[in-house]
């Protein structure tokens, strides 16, 4: 992780390989400051795991990356595009709803509570966005969606409604739904936290497979094993700041900060 010299305008030198760059991101809900200046860089193809106690702001930060939350200060770039704003003449202009939507197309997101559309079958869930949002031909999307569902191991569940699927199956459909938009970046917001313990493995397997394929991923998780095995970087957050970052195996084996030590001692 090389420290970047912040520049007001123009792209950073190492932009070509940087997928996400966050600079001094602040976010408050009312009087409570949840993020107190987060800096983060994620290279293309990197798997970055965000770890930390609940309330540390890791999910909020993830939601800022695709502008589900508006940040109060700082900047976030995804693949060189400033998220949510346009910088012109030294001033920030809010992007229109349509432009924000266009930025989100390239960023897939998987939620803790799956958030599948309950009135559509698994296949319809996956087909919906590419057809409606990207206006791709339905036949081609359908083919891709079937391949994706097969890839996450649900070839035989395509016609089922989310209510007929287990939590693990629903989450795998949700991953397929995000992948159908062919995103450059995938955000995972505690994807296994709402699952029964026995169903966690099947979802993690799909994510590992995705990481092996070179997908850029930011994963908020409590799965230390996943972070150690699949993660390229581990970022430990607490109280709205990044406490420690580095190679997951090293950080987990010998955490340098007291806060990281106590947290890892509790979860390991």
């Amino acid at each position, binding site marked *: 992780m090389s420290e970047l010299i912040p520049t007001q305008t123009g792209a950073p030198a190492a932009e070509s390989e940087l997928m996400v760059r966050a600079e001094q991101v602040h976010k408050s809900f009312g009087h409570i400051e949840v993020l107190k200046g987060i800096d983060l860089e994620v290279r293309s193809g990197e798997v970055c795991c965000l770890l930390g106690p609940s309330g540390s702001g890791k999910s909020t930060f993830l939601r800022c990356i695709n502008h589900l939350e508006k940040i109060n200060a700082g900047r976030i770039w995804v693949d060189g595009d400033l998220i949510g704003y346009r910088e012109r003449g030294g001033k920030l202009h809010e992007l229109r709803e349509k432009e924000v939507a266009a930025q989100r*197309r390239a960023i897939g997101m998987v939620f803790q509570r799956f958030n599948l559309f309950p009135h559509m079958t698994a296949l319809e869930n996956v087909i919906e*966005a590419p057809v409606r949002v990207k206006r791709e031909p339905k036949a081609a999307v359908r083919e891709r969606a079937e391949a994706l569902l097969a890839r996450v191991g649900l070839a035989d569940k395509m016609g089922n409604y989310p209510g007929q699927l287990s939590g693990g199956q629903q989450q795998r459909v949700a991953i397929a739904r995000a992948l159908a938009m062919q995103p450059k970046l995938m955000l995972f917001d505690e994807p296994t936290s709402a699952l029964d313990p026995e169903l966690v493995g099947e979802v993690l397997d799909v994510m590992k497979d995705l990481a092996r394929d070179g997908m850029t991923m930011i994963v908020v998780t409590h799965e230390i094993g996943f972070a150690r095995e699949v993660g390229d970087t581990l970022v430990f957050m607490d109280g709205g700041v990044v406490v420690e970052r580095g190679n997951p195996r090293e950080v987990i084996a010998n955490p340098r900060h007291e806060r990281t030590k106590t947290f890892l001692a509790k979860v390991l």
Partner: protein
Amino acid sequence: MESEEVTTVRARPEPIRAVPVRHPGRWVTVAVLAVLAAMFVHVLVTNDAFNWSFMVDKMFRPPIIEGLLRGTVLMTVSAMVIGVALGVVVAIMRLSDNPILRGVAWLYTWFFRAVPRLVLLAVFGNIGILWSRIEFGVPFDTQLGQLFGIDNLQLRLFGFSSRDILTGFMAGLLGLALSEAAYMAEIVRAGIQSVDPGQTEAAQALGMSRGQLLRRVVLPQAMRVIIPPTGNETIAMLKDTSLLLYVPVSVELFFQLDAVGKRTFQIFPMYVAACLWYLFLTSILLVGQYFLERHFGKGYGPAGRARLRLRTIAAEQGGGGGQGAVG
């Protein structure tokens, strides 16, 4: 391990054959109700003022059937179609980020819910007293013209005589539809707000626009909450078409029955005929409502969920390979 085996080997006990609890109270209730029913039939049959043969003779006459088809059925359908469409618009305005749209929507629902339908219909029926012609164009055109020294400037796009348009059917339709839209707006708003906010987030994360996520994701799910009260509203609307008597709308069921009754001095038989006709029409709607609710409850609710679970179990036993479904 051993104890388990013992339990499986043990013989199945006798099925329970117990004497059921007696309910003598039920029989007493039935007897009382039977007497009351007999008294009611007695009244119906022995009182000549009911004049049944007269009623049956008159209640199928062409003017009455025409009033039923146009004034009651067509009016209900038209008023509900306009009311639902306008109600959805007002509900979306009410939930908009734009404070002016929100304010206008609030004002609309406040006014049309606060004024009784009967009064509203009387007002719309007599609006011709205020304006003989209703025209649309630039507001204050004559006054503005005078400012610039032009006499009698008229900037009207189109207009119509209120006596031609705003009488009878149109006035009644306007009154009923506008008032219905206010109630429907509240129902639709509640439906939209009942949808999990995670659904909106998921749709946004996929890059859907506000219109797309409303049409494709939120409204279909809100339907489950919106449909049952809309069924009730339709039934209420059918009955409220009888208020058109005060517009007045002459081609309407109750107006016609009432007129026949007053003309022939057989008021009561005609009122009984009205009861029977409205009973008949609302019963049809009740059947329709049952099927609608069953359709939109698919995949939800106790019955729906049970049906889905059955189907899943069947699929698992047949297909296999998958994990157990979580209900």
